[in-house]
C-alpha cells in the first residue's frame, strides 16, 4: 500500500500541467509534463487492491479499470516499468503505446487497465471461461468501480459467470464517485451486492479502507471460488481522495465529506498495526519510486516506426 501511495503521489507530481481538462486552458501546448495523458489516481483506495491481490497467486489473473495503478502494483508488476509507461517510454509495459489507462503486465497475470467503464467485466468472465475450458486451477479477480454497476456489461458479465459457474471474484471498488457525479444519486436499489444477489452471485461487503478486513473477506470468497462454488462478489467501500483525473480539483464535492474521508486514510490506519516496520516500508517505497522516476526519465522514447507494429498480423502496419 505504501508503494501504491508513493507511486500515485509521484505520478501526480509528474503530471502537473498535463492534460488540462475541466475547463482549464489548453493553450500552453509547448509545456510538456513527464506524464502527459489523463491520469486517474487511486490514492486512498490502496487497501482494496492490496487486500485482494495478497490472496492471489502470480498465475491468477486480474482485469482492472482506468484507475488501475494500485491493482497493477499489488499483482506484482514492476513499479519502474509502470512509471516508464506513464512517461511514454519504450521500456514501459506497453512500449509507450498504452499509457496509464491501458497498463497491462501479462507476466504477472494483469490483463489490462481499461479506458471504458465496465469493459473489463466481460473480459474477466471470458478469461475465467477459458480457465474452465482448459481445466486450469487459477482464478480471475475483476476490479471495477461503482459507476460500472449502471452499465449493461455489469449485468451480462455477472449472469454469464453464474450460468457457467466460473471462477471469478467480482470486486466492486466503490469510491463513491462516477467521474464528477455522486454514484449514490444515480444508482437505484440496495447497491451492488443486492444486484449480485439477484443474479445468484453471493458476496460480502467490507470497509475498503480497512486493508486487513479486505484481505480477510476476499480470502473467504476466493476460498469458495477455489473450492468450486462459482463466482463471488466483494463490495469494498472506499473513497477517491483525488479528482476524477489528476487535473480535476473536484470542487463539486462537499468539503466536509472530503475532510472526513481524508481522516479515514487506509494507509494511516494500517501503519500502527504494522508497528516499527512501517517507517522502513515507507522509506523503501519512497526510494523505489525515486529509482522508478529516474529510470523513466532516462529511458528511451519509442521509435516512430513502432507506431506501425503490433496492429495485426495480416496487413500489419499498412497505411492504406
Amino acid at each position, binding site marked *: 500500500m505504501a508503494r501504491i501511495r508513493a507511486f500515485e503521489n509521484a505520478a501526480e507530481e509528474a503530471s502537473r500541467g*498535463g*492534460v488540462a*481538462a*475541466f*475547463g482549464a*486552458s*489548453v*493553450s500552453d501546448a509547448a509545456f*510538456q509534463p513527464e506524464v*502527459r*495523458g*489523463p491520469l486517474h489516481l487511486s490514492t486512498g483506495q490502496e487497501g482494496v487492491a492490496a487486500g485482494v491481490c495478497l490472496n492471489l497467486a502470480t498465475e491468477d489473473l486480474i482485469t482492472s479499470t482506468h484507475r488501475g495503478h494500485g491493482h497493477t502494483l499489488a499483482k506484482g508488476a514492476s513499479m519502474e516499468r509502470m512509471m516508464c*509507461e506513464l512517461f*511514454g*517510454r519504450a521500456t*514501459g509495459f*506497453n*512500449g*509507450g*503505446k*498504452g*499509457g*496509464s*489507462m*491501458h497498463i497491462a503486465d501479462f507476466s504477472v497475470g494483469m490483463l489490462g487497465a*481499461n*479506458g*471504458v*467503464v*465496465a469493459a473489463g467485466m466481460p473480459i474477466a468472465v471470458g478469461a475465467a471461461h477459458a480457465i474452465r475450458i482448459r481445466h486450469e486451477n487459477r482464478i480471475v479477480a475483476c476490479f471495477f468501480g461503482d*459507476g*460500472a454497476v*449502471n*452499465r*449493461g456489461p455489469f449485468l451480462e458479465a455477472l449472469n454469464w459467470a453464474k450460468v457457467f459457474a466460473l471462477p471469478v471474484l467480482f470486486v466492486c471498488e466503490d469510491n463513491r464517485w*462516477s*467521474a*464528477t*457525479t455522486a454514484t449514490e*444519486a*444515480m*444508482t437505484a436499489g440496495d447497491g451492488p451486492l443486492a444486484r449480485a444477489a439477484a443474479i445468484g452471485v453471493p458476496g460480502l461487503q467490507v470497509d475498503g479502507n480497512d486493508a486487513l478486513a479486505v484481505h480477510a473477506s476476499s480470502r473467504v470468497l476466493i476460498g469458495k471460488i477455489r473450492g468450486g462454488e462459482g463466482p463471488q462478489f466483494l463490495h469494498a467501500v472506499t473513497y477517491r481522495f483525488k479528482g*476524477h483525473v489528476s487535473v480535476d480539483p473536484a470542487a*463539486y464535492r462537499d468539503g466536509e465529506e472530503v475532510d472526513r474521508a481524508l481522516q479515514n486514510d487506509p494507509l494511516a490506519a494500517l501503519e500502527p498495526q504494522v508497528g516499527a516496520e512501517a517507517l522502513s516500508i515507507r522509506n523503501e517505497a519512497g526510494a523505489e519510486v525515486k529509482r522508478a522516476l529516474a529510470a523513466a526519465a532516462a529511458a528511451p*522514447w*519509442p*521509435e*516512430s516506426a*513502432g*507506431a*506501425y507494429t503490433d*496492429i495485426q498480423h495480416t496487413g500489419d*502496419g*499498412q*497505411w*492504406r
Partner: protein
Amino acid sequence: MSYAEAGCEAVRAALRTDPRVVVLGEDVGRGGIFQQYKGLQREFGATRVIDTPISESTIMGAAVGMALAGLKPVVEMRVVDFALCAMDEIVNQGAKARYMLGGQARAPIVARMPIGLWRGSAAQHSQSLEAWFAHVPGLVVVAPATPQDNYSLLAAAMACGDPVVYMEHKELWALQGDVSSQRLPLGKARVVQEGSDATLVTWSRSVHTALEAAAGHSVEVIDLRTLWPWDRDTVLASAAKTGRVLVAHEAVQAAGFGAEIAATVAEELGVRVKRLGGPRIPVGYSRPLEDEARVSSQAIMAALKQLLS
C-alpha cells in the same frame, strides 16, 4: 469566445427558446468534462439538464424514446469512443426510426461526441470516427472547425428535426474567435481561402492544419463543415475551376470519408484527386507514437506538391 463556450451558448439559447429541448449525459451538471455545458444546470434545473448514470446505451436509447415522445434531446457521449457503447441505439434505433416507423415520428436528437487526438489520450479516447456515421442512412454528421461554426451549426443541428451526430474536436475547445448569433444551414461548406491551382477539402481540426499548409499558395481551402449532407455543389464548382482535388482529414485514410469525396469528384469531373488521412494505426499514448497518427501541415504540403506536379 472559445469553441467550447460557443457550443455551450448554442445549447443555452435552445434551452431558453424551446421548452422541448433537454440535455442528458454523464457529468453535465458540473458542466461536462470539457465545460461545454457550463452553468446550464444552474440556469435550467436538473430536470432539463439531466445527470445520468454511466449508461451510454440507455442515455442514447432514452433520448430516442424522449424524441419519439415529443422532446428534443441533446445527448452527451463524452468522446466518440464511448458512443460505441451506444451503437445499437444510434444506428438501429435513432437513425432508422423515422423511416422504419413509416414517418409517424422523427427523432430530433443531437448527439455530441467529440473526436480527435488530444495530448496522450491513447487508443480509446482519440479516434475520429465520422465516416462510420456518415455511412448510416438517417444520420446528419457535423464537424465544426471554428467557434462561430460551433455556435451556428449546433443551433442548426438542434433545429433540424433529424438525428445529428455532432462532432466537436478536443483540440479545438480552447480556440478563441468572435461569435455572433449568425444562422447557418447544415450542408453548406465554407470556402476558407480562395485559390486556382488546387482544391483542398477538409473539416474539423484539419481545417487549421490545411490553412498552414496552403498559406502563400493559390490553393482553395474548403471547410466541409457537414459530412452528411456534404456540399457537393461547392466542392464540384471549385474542382471544376482548379482541376485538382486533395481531401485531408485526421481520421484514418483507409475507408475514410475522403474516399467518398474523391470518388465523387472523379466520377463527376474526371479531375485528379488525392486523399490524405491518418495511417491505419491505433493512436499511441507516447508522443512519438501519437505524432505518427497526426496529419501534419508538412504532410498536407507534400501531398499538394504531388498533386500539382
